[in-house]
């Protein structure tokens, strides 16, 4: 099967492992990620203000392309996924926003027909964890994994609808399918400090430090994430627990990690 794929700026640069292993693991599972030819940066954050139109058009164009191919729009980066899903939701539910967006769309309107999916949702809902399990050649042998969601995968939960926002299990169940052991991790949906690290690293080090300590305290060998910014903040906070993209762990279990 083929899906439309939106990589985003960071996956072509600082988070190449997320992108490369995402492609390789999808291929192993019989899915081709068809990258949008002329994708544009999502902007990193969805501005909640209803009068911001132009900053959301790059997402609308990506959504429109997926709709025209009748494929789900899949992304790996938590931020891209969040922006795409929130933009799609705004198009579907806010008539004024939709009309104002379509004033810019010279080559045809977009009215919210695309389905936005995170790669994790693709694994759980389309491919299925049983099929994932069948591809495992190098089981994780009880590796203790702290599944870290942060904010962007889960909230606002009314829109994201990925999982229970207070006790998600989508990554835990993936880790189980790979033979690992997800640990109890109360800080899994706490914020790492996000983009504030750009100007104030002391502030984000406190936020990320609490998360890493909580993972360590509960016996984790690694922290698993889908977000390049979370990874950066968690790695910069002074803790030495390894932070790994979920596609890297998947590739390791599939025996295709280089």
């Amino acid at each position, binding site marked *: 099967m083929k899906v439309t794929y939106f990589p985003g*700026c960071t996956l072509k640069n*600082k988070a190449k492992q997320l992108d490369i292993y995402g492609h390789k693991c999808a291929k192993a599972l019989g899915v081709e990620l068809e990258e949008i030819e002329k994708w544009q940066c999502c902007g*990193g954050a969805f*501005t*909640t*203000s209803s009068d911001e139109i132009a900053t959301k058009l790059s997402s609308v164009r990506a959504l429109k392309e997926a709709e025209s191919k009748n494929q789900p729009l899949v992304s790996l980066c938590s931020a891209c996924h969040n922006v795409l899903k929130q933009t799609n939701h705004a198009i579907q539910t806010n008539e004024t926003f939709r009309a104002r967006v379509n004033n810019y769309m010279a080559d045809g309107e977009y009215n919210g027909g695309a389905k936005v999916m995170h790669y994790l949702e693709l694994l759980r809902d389309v491919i299925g964890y049983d099929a994932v399990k069948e591809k495992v050649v190098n089981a994780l042998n009880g590796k203790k994994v702290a599944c870290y969601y942060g904010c962007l995968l889960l909230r*606002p939960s009314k829109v994201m609808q990925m999982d229970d926002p207070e006790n998600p299990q989508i990554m835990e169940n993936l880790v189980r399918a790979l033979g690992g052991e997800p640990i109890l991790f109360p800080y899994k949906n706490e914020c790492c400090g996000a983009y*504030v690290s*750009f100007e104030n690293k002391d502030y984000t080090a406190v936020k990320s430090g609490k998360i890493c300590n909580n993972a360590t305290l509960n016996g984790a060998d690694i922290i698993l994430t889908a977000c390049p910014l979370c990874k*950066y903040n968690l790695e910069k906070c002074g803790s030495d627990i390894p932070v790994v993209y979920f596609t890297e762990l998947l590739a390791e279990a599939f025996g295709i990690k280089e």
Partner: protein
Amino acid sequence: MEKNLNNAREEIIRRSGVNPSKCMKCGKCSGTCPAYDEMEYHPHQFVYMVETGDIEPLLKSQSIYRCLSCFACVDRCPRGVEPAKIVEAVRLEVIRQQGANHLKAEGVAENLDEEIPQQAIVTAFRKYTK
């Protein structure tokens, strides 16, 4: 001046889509806020101060740059008030003024290091700069 601030209140309410009078002052938003310690005004105060028109202190406060947009307050508010949207609308009220960008392009280089993801840069600019 008073008239301008009254306009600001209406703009903030319109832009955010938030109805601050729905708030029942339970404080859950501030209780769950990861940025609480860094904020001069906390999420519940943003809602209350916009409701009562006490806008000027918010416009002048660094609190608008301390919100992490994590949406914990939005998800956990029992009344669906969505305080983070109010904080964003107040921030836009400031940075949409001419010359009021919080981040300037000239200052980017000094904040970069070898590992910083592009995501951090574009998101900070989307949040802090118009």
